[in-house]
């Protein structure tokens, strides 16, 4: 019994016990369902062992949507707790845990897989490649992300959730002030999924640099591919910093080292610096692919080519450089002195310039265009003004002297949600709607989609704009309650109403998928939106080899050229295609990483060492394996092409 006590929840409540039961029931339900419908073999062959970038993309997509609801549940609980003064819904400890997991889940386990989903689904198609450079590494990246996400999500029923904020500042996150294993979960789960992200970064950079179709020079790449490339360059240079910081945090907690402690020379501010040297580039890792999606969508639905292509590219390059030079603005009040703060104020404000260039480019793309207000376009059009407000409040926060007024208030919370929701979340939903037909063969219902859009937009404005006001009036973030005398009650109730609208909005997305699956036409062709770039040039659904013949590229909008200007996209004979084999090793490695992470979290050294050895055995097996892939014969390709409606 003593052994099992470590797994108990330090702050139990009926809601957590209910969740435990729910998790157990759902897991049993899934296992039973798989057995009853005899789907184990299908699951193993088609999904768990797949190395196909499109299937991996879909798995990222499903995970991201699930995590969106997990993080959303946290959000609605927080807003409910703050909806009126002196609420008793959550106590301080639960509130701490919930805002911590909300932040981590939304950034690391929702937004990251969402952008990885689109990178996986779109990038190889946009550059006319068969797959990514290292398909098996790609599968491993996914399973590491998945292992990290699962590990993080069981924390609240086994051992307790992290409660030191998503930034996990030391000394609060050290053993003295965070006694439960919660912060161990934070360190290990993010470490595991972070290694996966780093591998994706390397994989995507190599893919984009070396696997473009003939004729596609760097300056003829579609804008989403450009944005993905720059985001992945940032990943490669930012994630190792997080790796080291998390490693040090882990040893501080598990092996009593003194990196971030307050005695024996430890320096807590080192964590804050490392965290944000990764953390600030991280927000650009999320927003740049979102910008890429908006660029594709706005030019498609304005029936115009993207305005200022090269300035779009250069502005992203500039943003990626500046993103590494601004981290101190996250802690202006922590005593760097006026000179340091001033320098970081200026670098921060400088980011507004290239971002502004992009805003104007989108506006000029729409100027005199034939705009179709489809659901993806609505999100994009709403994004421009809303994101601009988020950007302007960002410049307000960047003024270090003024920041002393709003630091750690709800004003900051309003600001970053104002950039992340219209910036990243809207882009993901726009991209989801836009690319859905390419991968699932039917269009999501536009009417329901528009209802979702309005619920989310109105909900967003109601939820977050009041926080600007309460923040300026002094409502601190991360406080679980406030007194009636503060006068924050009414505006917080408004926020709660907005959050509730958003929650309904997200549910309507699920309903839309269900409704459209049942009712939408399957006869949509391969190019339902009259789009412009290469991903629409192949069949729907996309065959596993993507393109039967390698496309010949003329411009960044080759597909448009082939439709309107008679550019010959596919030339020559169909040849045999080489494809990689499926492999179970990435999945197995992901599961071993899960066990390793869990063992380290609870300091169970025997299983920890065994699972580390297991990981090395998997790597050794990969080294000795002779895997030359397989070939798809010409006959097979022609049959597939004809079944999909004519050779491409």
């Amino acid at each position, binding site marked *: 019994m003593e052994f099992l006590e470590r797994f108990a929840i330090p702050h139990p409540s009926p809601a957590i016990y209910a969740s435990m039961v729910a998790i157990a029931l759902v897991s049993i339900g899934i296992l039973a369902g798989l057995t009853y419908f005899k789907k184990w073999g299908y699951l193993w062959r088609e999904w768990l062992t797949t190395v196909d970038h499109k299937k991996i993309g879909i798995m990222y997509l499903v995970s991201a949507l699930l995590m969106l609801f997990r993080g959303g549940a946290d959000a609605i609980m927080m807003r409910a707790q703050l909806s009126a003064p002196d609420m008793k819904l959550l106590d301080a400890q639960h509130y701490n845990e919930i805002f911590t997991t909300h932040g981590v889940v939304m950034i690391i386990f929702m937004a990251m897989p969402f952008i990885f989903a689109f990178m996986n689904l779109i990038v190889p198609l946009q550059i006319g490649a068969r797959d990514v*450079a*290292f398909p098996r590494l790609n599968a491993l990246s996914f399973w590491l992300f998945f292992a990290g996400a699962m590990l993080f999500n069981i924390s609240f029923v086994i051992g307790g959730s992290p409660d030191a904020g998503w930034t996990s500042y030391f000394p609060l996150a050290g053993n003295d002030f965070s006694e439960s294993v919660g912060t161990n979960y934070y360190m290990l789960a993010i470490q595991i999924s972070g290694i996966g992200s*780093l591998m994706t*970064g*390397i*994989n995507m*950079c*190599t893919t984009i*640099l*070396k*696997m473009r179709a003939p004729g596609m020079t760097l300056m003829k790449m579609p804008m989403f591919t450009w944005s993905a490339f720059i985001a992945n360059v940032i990943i*490669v*240079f*930012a*994630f*190792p*910093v997080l*790796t*080291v*910081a998390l*490693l*040090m945090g882990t*040893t501080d907690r598990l*092996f*009593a*080292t*003194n*990196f971030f*402690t307050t*005695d*024996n*020379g*430890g*320096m807590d501010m*080192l964590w804050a610096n*490392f965290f944000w*040297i990764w953390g600030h580039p991280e927000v650009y890792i999320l927003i740049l692919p979102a910008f890429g999606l908006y660029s594709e969508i706005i030019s498609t639905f304005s029936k115009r080519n993207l305005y200022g292509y090269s300035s779009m590219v250069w502005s992203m390059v500039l943003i990626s450089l500046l993103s590494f030079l601004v981290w101190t603005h996250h802690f202006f009040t922590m005593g760097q002195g006026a000179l340091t703060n001033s320098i970081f104020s200026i670098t921060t404000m400088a980011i507004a310039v290239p971002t502004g260039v992009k805003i104007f480019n989108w506006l000029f793309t729409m100027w005199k265009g034939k705009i179709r207000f489809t659901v993806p376009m609505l999100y994009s059009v709403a994004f421009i003004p809303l994101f601009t407000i988020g950007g302007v409040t960002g410049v307000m926060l960047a003024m270090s002297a003024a920041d002393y007024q709003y630091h750690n208030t709800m004003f900051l919370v309003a600001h970053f949600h104002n950039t992340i929701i219209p910036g990243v979340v809207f882009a993901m939903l726009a991209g989801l709607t836009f690319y859905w037909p390419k991968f699932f063969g039917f269009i999501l219902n536009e009417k329901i989609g528009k209802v979702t859009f309005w619920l989310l937009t109105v909900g967003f404005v109601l939820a977050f704009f009041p926080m600007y006001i309460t923040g300026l009036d002094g409502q601190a973030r991360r406080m679980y309650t406030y007194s009636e005398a503060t006068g924050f009650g009414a505006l917080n109730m408004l926020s709660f109403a907005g959050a509730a609208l958003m929650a309904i909005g997200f549910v309507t997305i699920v309903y839309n998928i269900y409704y459209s699956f049942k009712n939408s036409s399957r006869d949509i062709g391969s190019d339902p939106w009259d789009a412009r770039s290469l991903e629409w040039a192949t069949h729907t659904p996309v065959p596993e080899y993507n393109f039967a013949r390698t496309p010949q590229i003329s411009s960044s909008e080759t597909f448009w050229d082939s439709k309107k200007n008679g550019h010959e996209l596919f030339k020559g004979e169909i040849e045999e295609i*080489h494809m990689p084999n499926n492999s179970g090793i990435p999945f197995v490695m992901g599961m071993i990483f899960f066990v390793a992470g869990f063992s380290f979290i609870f300091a169970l050294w025997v299983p920890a060492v065994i699972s580390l050895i297991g990981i*090395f055995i998997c790597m*050794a097996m990969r*080294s*000795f394996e002779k895997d*030359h892939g397989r070939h798809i014969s010409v006959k097979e390709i022609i049959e597939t092409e004809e079944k999909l409606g004519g050779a491409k």
Partner: protein
Amino acid sequence: MHIDNSQPLEYSTQQNQLNILGFWIFLGAEIMLFATLFTAYFTLEGRTGSGPAPAEIFEITPVLIETLVLLTSSFTIGLGIHAMRLGRKNAMLTFFTITLLLGLCFLGVEIYEFMHYYHIGATYQTSAFTAALLTTLGTHGAHVTLGLFWGTFIILQVKKRGLTPETANKSFIFSLYWHFLDVVWIFIFSFIYLKGMM
């Protein structure tokens, strides 16, 4: 698989070229990893708490042996790759084996060095300085250890399968890794040991 004979064996297929570029990008990430460790070390090296200062624990002899051994191993793996380019399998295997043996020597001396620190009271838990020192050295040492296993696998594969585009590619990438560890060591030697002993 299309083989381009105008290229050296390790570059001769498209997958080989992808592997090499991908590994260079990985080394870029590794540079960031070690840069972060060095940053932590430089920030914390003066913060010794109640523990010893750098000059009190560093000893020049083991460090010089480690340096000499590792630099030589970088030279021998270069010879190994040169032999591989000439298609001389046995010479290549000999140089690779010498490289790994030198790596093993390095590791042995480093383990001795760590035990020495432990005995004179500079443990992982002593101070922020010792934690940063041992983490930086330990990360490098862990890379060398991994390299010893990886290199052995490659020797076994070359021995069994001969010099094919695949094994040549693996050997070349391994040599990049090994040279990289040497470069990192030069920084460790100059900016941790020499600086600390001055």
